[in-house]
């Protein structure tokens, strides 16, 4: 019925920490920074070696060496001349890279708006006129090989959007809109995490960037512009009825249904997401049921209250319904 889990778990694959994501770039921005990082590591290693050698010689070296090292000359060379030369070079390198990375994209570039919430990510895809046409949460889909402009905002407190394999981070600050250009060179799933302390379960606020081959991305986008078909399976249909009757629509939106709440994540395509709870759980009927019934045990302090009013069958029906929203 199912392929083995090791071949299915894109979440686990994306979360892998070795090689170190910041030094394992998957896009041009991260690549530029990774190169800079290696240069810095090499340079600082060299300078440290020089300083350690100087200390060793000063303490244990031959009298001739020690005489050379004593006095003001060493201070001028090592403390003034050498740093000024090295730092000037580094500064030029750093500033030119900064300018390149911060350059804005051309006007027609694809735009995605991500809003940091406590403790999840509201995602909206913009059309050419700047209207939000597709809504999602905790997962962003982009075409591979092309830059995408991310508009970063915050709904409540300061968050920070960080996908180390693709680019540096950029803060999401209430009252401001920050712009980040991201490109993934190859299709794949890239893990991100909130990088500005936002209280409570800040540690459990992750997200995924999914890069598709361009043709596949167009198909994905087209599919997303249509709301999902109503559930055919009787259990899932029962779940839809439970959803509607339980007030879930007050916080959540499912396109093509009466549910249109904006307080919580958009659930129109929740079944297709590769994770739940903002990058912290795999997505299947079991975890869906667990989250709905008592998300506080999974992510304490999050804004969704536990729902202990469902019978076993109702809970399973809901889980089947939500899983079918893909």
């Amino acid at each position, binding site marked *: 019925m*199912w392929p083995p889990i090791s071949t299915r778990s894109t979440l686990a694959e994306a979360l892998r920490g070795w090689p170190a994501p910041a030094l394992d770039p998957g896009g041009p921005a991260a690549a530029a920074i990774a190169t800079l990082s290696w240069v810095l590591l090499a340079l600082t290693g060299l300078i440290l070696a020089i300083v350690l050698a100087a200390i060793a010689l000063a303490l244990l070296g031959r009298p001739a060496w020690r005489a050379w090292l004593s006095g003001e000359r060493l201070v001028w060379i090592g403390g003034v001349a050498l740093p000024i030369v090295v730092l000037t070079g580094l500064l030029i390198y750093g500033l030119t890279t900064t300018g390149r990375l911060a350059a804005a994209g051309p006007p027609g570039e694809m735009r995605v708006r991500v809003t940091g919430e406590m403790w999840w990510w509201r995602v909206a895809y913009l059309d050419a006129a700047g209207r939000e046409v597709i809504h999602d949460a905790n997962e962003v889909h982009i075409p591979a090989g092309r830059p995408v402009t991310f508009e970063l905002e915050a709904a409540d407190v300061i968050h920070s959007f960080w996908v180390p394999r693709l680019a540096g981070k950029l803060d999401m600050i209430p009252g401001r809109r920050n712009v980040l250009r991201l490109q993934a060179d190859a299709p794949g799933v890239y893990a991100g995490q909130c990088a500005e302390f936002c209280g409570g379960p800040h540690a459990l606020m992750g997200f995924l960037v999914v890069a598709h081959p361009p043709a596949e991305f167009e198909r994905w986008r087209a599919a997303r512009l249509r709301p999902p078909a109503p559930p055919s399976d009787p259990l899932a249909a029962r779940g839809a009825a439970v959803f509607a009757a339980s007030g879930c629509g007050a916080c959540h939106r499912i396109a093509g249904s009466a549910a249109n709440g904006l307080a919580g994540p958009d659930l129109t395509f929740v079944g297709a997401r590769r994770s739940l709870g903002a990058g912290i759980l795999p997505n299947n009927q079991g975890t869906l049921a667990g989250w709905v019934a008592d998300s506080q045990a999974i992510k304490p302090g999050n804004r969704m209250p536990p729902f202990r009013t469902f019978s076993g069958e109702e809970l399973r029906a809901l889980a089947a319904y939500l899983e079918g929203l893909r």
Partner: protein
Amino acid sequence: MGLKLGSSGAGAAVKRVTFLMSAGLAAAACDGGAVQPRALANAEPARGRATIEQVGCAACHHIPGVRGPKGRVGPPLEGFAERALIGGRVPNRPDLLALWVRDAPALVPGTGMPPMPLTEAESRDVAAYLYTLNAR
């Protein structure tokens, strides 16, 4: 050969020894400490634990030894190895547990535990891990 129940010396002694031996065997069978491991062919508890973490069982259950949330939706699984029933309804047998773990509604239609995306082999691994959970 029958054992005449009488009070003659040798007979009484044999009777007593037999009684004690039977009691001892019964006691060994009834345990009082460790459970006999339930046999699952080709199943590895360590693989089962990894599978549990990857599939997210902890979203509903508090499972000792598993890194994850301590879910409160389903019963805690501490000491599961010694439980007589699964889900309060199904006998706690290896074959039934493996089936339950991947398709609980097939065994108990009213259960709140949905079917889980596990292969047969994976569900046996999971069962093997659950059978290592002895009560402290």
